[in-house]
């Protein structure tokens, strides 16, 4: 089990985070954007759990932190989807680039 070094987890988390950031900044569909944000938050969870087990100063508080992150991320996703629903009811679109009324 312990043969996987910490750096492997960190690189995995970093890659996930970058994919998430890329998706959040470039995708048209708002649902995909919300999923990409979840990806970024899950990268953080991997980091926290890996550090709490294999870090230079292992401690349990990383796992507790990740529990909070998961909960809050769920709340944020719920609110995001609810807002997307009410937007869809008015505008019949989920595409981010069509949400451009507020410019002038």
């Amino acid at each position: 089990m312990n043969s996987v070094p910490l750096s492997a987890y960190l690189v995995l988390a970093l890659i996930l985070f970058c994919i998430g950031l890329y998706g959040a900044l470039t995708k048209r569909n708002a649902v995909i954007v919300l999923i990409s944000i979840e990806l970024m938050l899950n990268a953080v969870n991997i980091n926290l759990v890996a550090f709490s087990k294999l870090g230079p100063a292992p401690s349990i508080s990383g796992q507790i932190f990740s529990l909070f992150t998961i909960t809050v991320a769920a709340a944020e996703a719920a609110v995001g989807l609810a807002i997307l629903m009410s937007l869809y009811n008015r505008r019949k679109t989920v595409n981010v680039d069509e949400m451009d009324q507020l410019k002038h």
Partner: protein
Amino acid sequence: MNLDTLLSYEWGHMAPEFIILAVAALLSLLDLFLPKSYNRRSLAWIALVGILVAVVSLIGLLDSKSVSILHDTFRLDSFGKAFKLILLIGAACVILLAESYEPKEGLKEYRGEFYYLFLTGLLGAMVMTSSGDLITLFVGLELLSISSYILAGMRKKNPGSNEAAMKYVINGGISTAITLFGMSYLYGLSGTTNLKEMSGAMSAQAANGQFLYLYGLAFFMVLIGLSFKLASAPFHMWAPDVYQGSPTPVTAFLSVVSKTAGFVILLRIILTLFLTMPGDDTQKLSFLETHSIYISCLAGISIIAGNVIALRQRNIKRMFAYSSIAHAGYILVAISALGYFTFDAVWFYLLAYLLMNLGAFAVIQLITDSSHSEDIADFAGLYRRSPLLAAGFAVFILSLAGIPGTAGFIGKLNIFMNALMTDPGHFVLASIMIAGTVISYFYYFGIMTQMFFRPAASTEKIKVPAGIGAVVVLALAGTILFGVAPNTALDFLHNNFGSFNDFLK
């Protein structure tokens, strides 16, 4: 943990938080069980009374020494008390604005939610001001953010409001993730989430270049994530849209309470962790001193971008969004020029900004609601329609522009002096500040021209509701008092909070 340890904590020090929490819970229950036909407007007064009781209980705690409870996750030090006071006063004014808020299509059955979501947001901000742990900081930040997302989309039938809320959720989510990623490195390297222990661990590890490099990475991610929340350029893109689309009381809340909370968390994390940590192998300069150039860049770009782009706005709320970006830049100048007076300067500026901005938003809400448009031309001839309101708005604008005799001037002067007094002096930032202030005269005085010299479209007199009237009078009194006699506020600060000596202890 057994019952004895639980009871041994001095829960009295969390009284303001508990009061806000109880009132928010009470309001949500009342909103649920009251009959549908009942006018929810009266709930605003309960919320207001709750906030005022919280202010009183906070004033009762002013004399107590710095305490930390709950395993040092909650600490009531002078920093927490001073900024909590600003947050509570700001929230009380926002509730008054929300009481009088009447959009075109009405708030209908959502009016109850409108009030208690402000309270939960306020609770999040208050938890942030006095937390000594990354986890509580994060939970407070998210409580504030999620409440604000819903508040921004409160006008469900209004496409602008929906769009603003969606943009806010996406931008807020990305910024949260970036901040958290930085925090996960901070935790992982130091092995603790407690800010004080973390600071000790970081100072010990900093001699190792590799650790220093990773801490630098974490510093950047936290700084970038938080500058989204502060709406400082170049991470300000969401602010104009969200400010424009949200209901006006929510815009006021975002520009005052949310921004104050952003500065609080920035100071808590950056100062506690990076002030004592050595910044290079030679261990001569602290990390913050070697890296303050990045905060300076944020400040400079915010001031220039905010003021220049505000010049060509026709929508009053959008213009105030850019002006608030510029004001965030001014406060960042104080943080980047870290000195003995930084806390005083930031606190005073936030107080002055709260008064002048809330006063301005009270007038904006009144005018935009009655004309159903947000064009600056709606302010034409305000002087003939309501001379007192026009005079009040003029004072707020003069204060925002930083004209002597107003609180805004003293705030700017403090920051300016602070930037020059530190060693080495921040001359470039100080000159950018002056240039930005001069540019801001153009758009601020554009509104004045509209009010005093343009003919009004209608000569109808404006009726001022009680809530808005109260906010305007309070903000006006504060703006002029702290402008003419700033020592009343500064003496209060020094007598009650000293010079924030217990911040790092």
